[in-house]
């Protein structure tokens, strides 16, 4: 029972992390998994000019 619960919690935690990461990145305009937003393939939203 305990190993099952631990495994379920671990899987759920990782899945939650992945979902939150995706949502936060999507809000910044990054839709792919690969980059941190500074590469050519996807960039964060345009910054306003000062």
């Amino acid at each position: 029972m305990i190993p099952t619960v631990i495994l379920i919690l671990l899987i759920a935690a990782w899945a939650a992390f992945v979902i939150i990461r995706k949502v936060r990145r999507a809000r910044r305009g990054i839709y792919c998994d690969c980059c941190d937003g500074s590469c050519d393939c996807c960039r964060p939203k345009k910054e306003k000019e000062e």
Partner: protein
Amino acid sequence: MENNETERRELRVAFIGNPNCGKTTLFNAYTGANLKVANWPGVTVEKKEGSYKFQGQEFKLIDLPGIYSLTSYTMEERVSRMCILSDEVDVIVDVADASALERNLYLTLQLIELGKPVVMALNMMDIVEERGMEIDLHRMQEMLGIPVIPVSARKKTGLEQLMHAVLHHRDASARHRIEHHHKVGENAQLHAEYALVYSDGIEEEIARLENVFEDRYPDMTNRRWHAIKYLENDSDVMGEFPVESFDPESFESRMINEKYDFIEEVIAEVLVNRDEKSAMTDRIDRVLTHRIWGVPVFLGIMALVFALTFTVGDWLKGYFEAALEVFSDGVSGLLSAVGAGELITSLLVDGIIAGVGGILTFLPNIVILFIALAVLEDSGYMSRVAYVMDGLMGKIGLSGRAFIPMLLGFGCTVPAVMASRALEDKRDRLRTMFVTPFMSCSARLPVYVLLSQMFFGKWAGIAAFSMYVIGLFMAILVALIVSKCSKKYEEHTLLIELPEYKTPNPHTIFIYVWDKVKDYLTKAGTTIFLASIVLWFLLNFNQHGLVSDMGESFAAGIAKFLVPVMKPTGLGYWQIIVALISGIAAKEVVVSSMSVLYGVANISSAEGMAALSGALGSVGFTAVNAYAMMIFVLLYIPCVATLATIKRESGSVKFMLGTMAMQLLTAWIMSALVFNIASLIF
């Protein structure tokens, strides 16, 4: 002025130069992580700013777009010119490729004419040395009247000397003594003041205009530059400073020729052991950019790439499969030993490990593909491909530059769609975004590898390669149809640099491939991981709870509705439909799904493939169905990341939905055609 200069806390330096001269590498060498990326107001041209400190002086560095000249034909040129002329820039660093001096000096001369302080950073000096050439820097400084600092952005040499020169030449009046050896005409005094002095007739016109400007626009700075631009028929200058009484004949082509004459003079004097444009490059280009043979050669090279992907990649894949099998058995054993429940074991082993692990075994094929693409890119060949395809692009109503984003689509559709930003015309951008998803991205490769190896034996490589050819063909066909339906078509010219061929740098290739491997692993651990869990759930549960037969699950219920629709395409199997639907998350998930759907742990192993082809064969799924499925995967809806990018770049949900609908329809029609025709033949 000098007091103001010294008092200013921040010195603003703009980096400008031709594309591929190493400007951004040099800029990054100074700024490192201290940079901000944005867009110039109102345009899609990128603006990079960074900070740097040297000898107690703060610098604000601006990386301007790569341009060949300072006319105002393109958005990049206009943006660069506006920036340099404004108060935003105190000193210009002209980054020039020392190995292609002739081409780079044109911009240099235009920058010098601007009248602002210019320092030349002569980059890629290491390549010059490799070719046995030498550049007389001292003479070059005398002829151009500006400091010339040798640097190597890649090796990070000369960086401090460059900033030292910038710091000490920020006053425009502090110029180098100019010394020419050519004959001077009537305007001898000008030769002491300006690097480039035009012929007497042109100089007279310049002087005349300068007098007019002095009367008309007394606040104008750098009247000479404005006069030069006026004579070149520069619309921006003529619009801003109209001179009604003055109707000049355009001296543009004469002035361009005289600039190039001067450049020849500089090259003749400063370049020692001058390397006439590499004969080797010319010989190779005669074949690779041949009017007729260029395209077949490109297809042949891509065929070779895929042959390598299948042979070398498969050999390495065997080791990954073995490792996965060991891992899967190990986890299964461990879970059993600790008394973990059946459900959690099923989720972990049949869901996550089968799904994610199945994808990871294709890593060798992906690595080989990207190594090949990196070699082609770094050698200089990819520029030739864009050039070769330019003529074809033009015939189908696309700008020649549209093939460059399409080419990126062989790697990933997301950056390919992003790259369509380089096209200035909005219609071109939308058309390119519309067809780019047809270019088969690397995420689809596992699907092709799996199906072709299962059903096509020794023809597996050809079957997979044909997907890339079909994708290219469909992109061209759809573009042609769209262009015929469009009312207006404008001709575009392609200006593209063809760098000299060089031996690919192993370090560059390693960095490129390692980035792709990291992307792949990240995707496996995130999107594919999530998709595997969702899929496992949908396949093992229905409204009543856990099911013993997947055919009664949620996923099966949804998919069975679509079976009659997909039957004409040869894909009327609920399991295949579930796999295709799951591929919208990421194309690799099609393979993961099949692994989960058919309960095959190590799907890419010989045993796994035998089990899967047995399961498929028992329901009448043959090689013809497999080929139809490959075509469907090639052409149908792109992944979520691509859809989101299309929506953002086009600014329209309607356009994104239209792209989805068009692709789904195309996939259905083509799969149905191929399936039905092939079924008659085989």
